[in-house]
């Protein structure tokens, strides 16, 4: 047991190598697009909207596709009000405030790891980032759940409470709804993977250092 702890202690005390530091820089850079590209995308197709009503969820905002002849967010809200669903409004999402803040914090911590070079700090960062990612997914799912369940009892059209799809495809009334992660989420997943790679590479180098 003590041996294992010692081994772990040694592991956490190792300095990460150059390759890992470069990879961490790459991971920080990969996080930058999350400020500009959507994290999630929902597209609703129907007979009347063969090109689909498009809803994009960014780290800091909610945006429907907008053409001169249509504002998709307004349109989705106009249609949802018939089943008593609350209007999708940016103000309802505290996420849009803390997600960009946390991503910024993660980037700063990554730079700190690069400078200080301690494996323990890198592991901290990875764990924190993974927790943040999973929590964001949960809160997103929870929001969808609330929108689909807290329906106005006086709505014109009564539907059974439901959770809009978070991942995949479903049919809601006359709409085919497709919901998938978008580039922003892929960037976050890639950043997590890169951090893990950085840990893995320096782990082997620390093993090599040990006999010396």
């Amino acid at each position, binding site marked *: 047991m003590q041996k294992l702890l010692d081994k772990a202690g040694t592991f956490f005390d190792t300095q990460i190598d150059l390759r890992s530091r470069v990879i961490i820089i790459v991971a920080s850079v990969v996080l930058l697009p999350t400020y500009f590209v959507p994290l999630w995308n929902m597209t609703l197709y129907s007979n009347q909207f063969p090109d689909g009503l498009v809803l994009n969820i960014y780290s800091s905002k909610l945006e429907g596709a907008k053409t*001169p*002849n249509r*504002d998709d967010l307004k*349109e989705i809200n*106009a249609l949802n009000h*018939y089943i008593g669903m609350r209007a999708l409004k940016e103000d309802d999402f505290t996420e849009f405030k803390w997600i960009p803040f946390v991503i910024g914090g993660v980037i700063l911590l990554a730079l700190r790891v690069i400078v200080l070079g301690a494996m323990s700090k890198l592991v901290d960062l990875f764990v924190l980032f993974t927790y943040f990612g999973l929590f964001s997914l949960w809160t997103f799912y929870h929001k969808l759940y609330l929108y689909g369940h807290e329906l106005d009892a006086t709505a*014109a059209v009564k539907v059974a409470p439901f959770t809009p799809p978070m991942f995949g495809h479903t049919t809601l009334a006359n709409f085919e709804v497709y919901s998938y992660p978008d580039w922003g989420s892929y960037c976050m997943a890639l950043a997590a993977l890169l951090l893990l790679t950085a840990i893995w590479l320096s782990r082997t180098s620390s093993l090599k250092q040990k006999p010396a």
Partner: protein
Amino acid sequence: MTLRAALLMVLAAALVAGCGGEKKGRGGRSDARSDIQEAALRTYVAPGDMDEYYLFKSGGHSGQVYIYGVPSMRHLATIPVFTPYPATGYGFDKESKEMLGGYTWGDAHHPSLSETNGDYDGRWLFISDNANNRMARIDMRDFKTKQIFGPIPNVSGNHCSSFTTENTEYILAGSRFSIPLPKGTYEKVEDYATKYKGVVAGIAVDPKTGTMSLGWEVLMPPFDYDLGDAGKGPSKDWGFWTCYNSERATGKLEVTSTQKDRDYVAAVNWPAAEKAIRDGKFKMLGGAKVIDPKDVEGVVYLLPAAKSPHGVDVSPDGKYIVASGKLQSITTVFNIEKMLTAIQKTDFTGNEDGIPVLNYDAIKDAEVNVGLGPLHTQFDDKGYAYTSLFVESAIAKWKLGTWEVVDKIPVSYNIGHLCSSEGDTKHPTGKYLVALNKLSHGRHLSVGPSQPESSQLIDIEGEKMSLLYDAFTEPEPHYAQMIKADKLKPIEVYPKEENKNPKAIWDVKDAKTVRSGKNVEVYMLAVRSSFEPNTIDVNKGDKVTIYLTNIEQTTDELHGFGLNDYNINVVVDPGETKTIEFVADRQGVFPFYCTNFCSALHQEMQGYLLVKGSGAVSSLHAPDKSLATK
């Protein structure tokens, strides 16, 4: 070859002939089936597909403009112009009511698209009113009438209108019916030849906004100014008008005005007219600056043309001026260079009220024997002209320069105007031609004595013209404009940011009713599927003003506001605000409802106007006559 094989071949040939051979239709049609299939393929626009051209037809005494798609010839929409049109709420809201100025009809005659360098620029469509002497401008951004200018002072029967100069500096106008001027003057009809006057005019167009104002007017002898065209290229400084009745006759014009073999084309040099106005060489008449050709030289000339000419059309290169003498079988072609030379050499053969008449032999290039009753001419991209023949019910195709008639196609029946694709610009596309026929009898299911007009689509790409399709329309397309669809980019939603109406509201919490004395202002919004507020409480005699904003931003989400028993229907487009004004002069409860089907809960989109009164309940709610004429 055996006898049996030969017999079989003969039989097979007979069968083929039987299938593809001639078939006589009800209307006497005898086209080969393969031609019908070809025509069907050329005109079939599959569901969901778009047409290649817009066709804007004047609606004649309906007062409106009809939009058709070419080649399908489907009626796409009606643009109300001179006549109230409840389908779009036109003439019911305050803004359009003011524009109509109390008139309830117009005779929409000749549409004219704005031009830049002699080609359609897709900005505005102008159309003249022969009845109440007005000119309207439709914005091609939203296909809505934006201005009705007039009644134009001194102009009487604005028929020879509206034709656009090369860069839309002016829209031509003028009098078909000469009268004593200024309007309001009484003179005996026996004194017609001396005391009655015609005018031709240029309506100035603001190059940025399209706003029309009166540019200049020229006092003319009492002839009947019939049609016109503006020059282009070498003739760009000129406006041309035909006239009949140069006899200055009255009474039964059918006889009295048709005695001379030649009448005239009037040619006005508009920069000279502009200069005369600038130099103060005009007199005020009926509130307008009018140039008298007796006092100012070089503004107007007369070109003798055979006989009672109707249309005058300038060729794409601007070199030829083609006047069609409806009572002879010839179309006269004048050459602009020869005309300018004759003016320079003062080669005149007379004058009419001080206006020089140019020497016919010196200015004409050709008399083209096109056929009976030539009226109007359009052009293609290969140097051909197409002249409509009313009496002959046909179109003649002839070559500019050689003056040779190369083809003729019968039409059904009695063609008036014709319109080829961008056929009055510097660059006609030479693809389609629409014959705007006056009579349609026997070509459609009978609809009783009130017969529609017929419009026939003709392919002009090949050497021979070929008939593609029959379409029908309400009375009465006079002229039309055909423009390539991709030159127009109409909006379908008024962007919220552009709505500068201070009375517009966009949020339910701003919906309110404000009373001050007997004035009640209602700030109302419409959105699927409700009006807010949905109850309006007023007292009998209150003046009610509703500012209704449609807060939708989605294409096709229109909402209507129909008020029962009050003779009101307004339709508001997405992002638009309209003002509804009326006096609540009848007590009781009056439902209002959405008239333009909007959604699954459209029926529920309704509310009540409650008018509290002290009087006894009247059993009869007759329509308020004052509303109808306001």
